[in-house]
């Protein structure tokens, strides 16, 4: 669809705010106005902001649970297969399948797999690494990692109209409104 448009492509319209309360307020107002495809950027996590953008249930805890279970079964299975099937050795008369001795390694494998799933899962669901993103085209966006707060209404939103959306954002008393080029 994007190929049909003429350059410069517009990714969205960005409004800059000076404090977290203003951003949360603006995000709430934007949702009430009927915009769906919006995102907000802040230099630290703001719980209320995520709620204001519409709560999304994250699949990450499930990913971590599955990772942990896979690590647990694989760790125990490895030890069982090695000690009882592939290389059975009599150590001090202990049974080949001496399960209490297998618990520490099973535990470590569980933690390792769950932690790897948490980190890789978080990055994958967030779509990172992503070297290029249109918001970086706005010079003042560098302050999003310092002390400024940004709200973006994306052009793929059904209600998006560059002039009307800009005008709407101006009513939220931002410090500045910018068009984000793709």
């Amino acid at each position, binding site marked *: 669809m994007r190929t049909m448009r003429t350059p410069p492509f517009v990714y969205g319209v960005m409004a800059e705010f000076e404090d*977290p*309360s203003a951003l*949360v*307020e603006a*995000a709430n107002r934007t949702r009430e106005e009927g915009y769906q495809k919006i*995102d*907000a*950027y*802040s*230099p*630290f*996590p*703001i*719980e*209320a*902001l*995520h709620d204001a*953008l519409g709560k*999304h249930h*994250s699949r*990450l*805890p499930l990913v971590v649970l599955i990772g*942990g279970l896979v690590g647990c079964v694989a760790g125990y299975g490895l*030890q069982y297969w*090695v000690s009882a099937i*592939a*290389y059975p050795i009599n*150590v001090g008369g*202990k049974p080949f399948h*001496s399960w209490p*001795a*297998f618990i*520490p*390694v099973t*535990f*470590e*494998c569980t*933690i*390792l797999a*769950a*932690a*790897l799933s*948490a*980190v890789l*899962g*978080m*990055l994958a669901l*967030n779509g*990172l*690494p992503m*070297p*290029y*993103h249109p*918001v970086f085209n706005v010079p003042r966006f*560098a*302050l*999003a*990692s*310092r*002390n400024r707060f940004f709200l973006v209404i994306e052009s793929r939103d059904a209600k998006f109209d560059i002039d009307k959306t800009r005008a709407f954002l101006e009513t939220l008393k931002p410090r500045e409104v910018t068009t984000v080029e793709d």
Partner: protein
Amino acid sequence: MAEGLVPNEDPGQAVAASGGPPVIAPGYTFGSVTDKISAIVLTRGTPLGWWLGFLLAFALVNVLLVSITYLLVKGVGIWGIDIPVGWGFAIVNFVWWIGIGHAGTLISAILLLLKQTWRTSINRFAEAMTLFAVSCAGLFPLIHMGRPWLAYWMVPYPNTMGVWPQFRSPLVWDVFAVSTYATVSLMFWFVGLIPDLATLRDRSPSRAGRVIYGMLAMGWRGSARHWHRYEIAYLLLAGLATPLVVSVHTVVSFDFAIAIVPGWHTTIFPPYFVAGAIYSGFAMVLTLAIPIRAIYGLEDFITMRHLQNMAKVMLVTGLIVAYGYLVEAFIAWYSGDRFERFVPFNRVTGPYALFYAALILCNVVIPQALWLKRVRNSVPVLFVIAIIVNVGMWLERFIIVVTSLHRDFLTSSWGMYSPTFWDWATFVGTIGLFLALLFLFLRFLPMISIAEMRAILPEAKVEEGR
């Protein structure tokens, strides 16, 4: 559930409620916190003291490299180990280093779960300390093996010899525990760094800085949806790291406790080792934090509150360790076994009695001064006590390893252990490695989490419906 980084309570209120000094000095804003911490890396340049410290540490790294090279050429015979004391400095230092690492995980994971806001300004470099201490620790079992180039035999992989590791051995558990610990600590530290790497990317005055920090930040842009998943991941990692850290030193204590050697074969070892690890780790955090805050002028971020709290944690864990010493001796007596009974007797009166007396002095007697508020308020005194505890915890591992082994069941197999020049050179070399890595970290990465510091500022509080 994702409220890991931002405690719901008002930070200002938290300070007032508990009394005492604040966790961050008043008057800071998002901008000034960011600028102050990032300037150390980006614009303040390299101080002369940094060069002196780094060069000294780097010289010691070379001592380590020479020691290891000589070891590879000649074999472990260059060390003082022999029968009956086959585990000398290598295992003493291994346990000491890995114990030091544990405070980093405790501060970053357990205090996060307990919502202790004061952890924020010390967690980053405590985590870095963990990584570097684990690197030093991991080196010792490797070079102790005699043929370190065959270390990969410990990993279960299909091979032409048709052999597999022996999973009933605590030494194999150690391989899994320590490597998992190193991996999870690295991930935890790196995930914490991502938002700050983005800050450095956006603020770096040089192109090289923007490119390198930019690649490491992976395109982090602070989107609210990203933050949400980030916090879930961070909290889950903390929840996973908490049992992990307990398991690691438990497995390390199994290396001893599973053996039938009198003085090792005891059930108090796992909890007593974990408490000892936290004790020595907090001592090391204090040893590092006190000079760093003075040199880089970070007294506003690492306040007296942090130092006092760490002193209190040291006092508590020190008492647990003292209880461990007591129970160890009691159970030896209570067992009625003559070999077990001989161990504490020999520790107090035998050839290593001086070391044991020094251990009790360093770990049990002197730290009792921390009961006094005056002592906890004095930075120089805290620094001295922290160093004494570091020494004491090293002596503890020396006593456990050496005195238990040097008197075997048969008097014909009795012997003595004394370290050689190369034992000392390797040990001092790892201290150099630890410090060199720490200096590089202080110079190139933000030593305090900027994103978390912003979140505890009073202005971070969102007032809805105004």
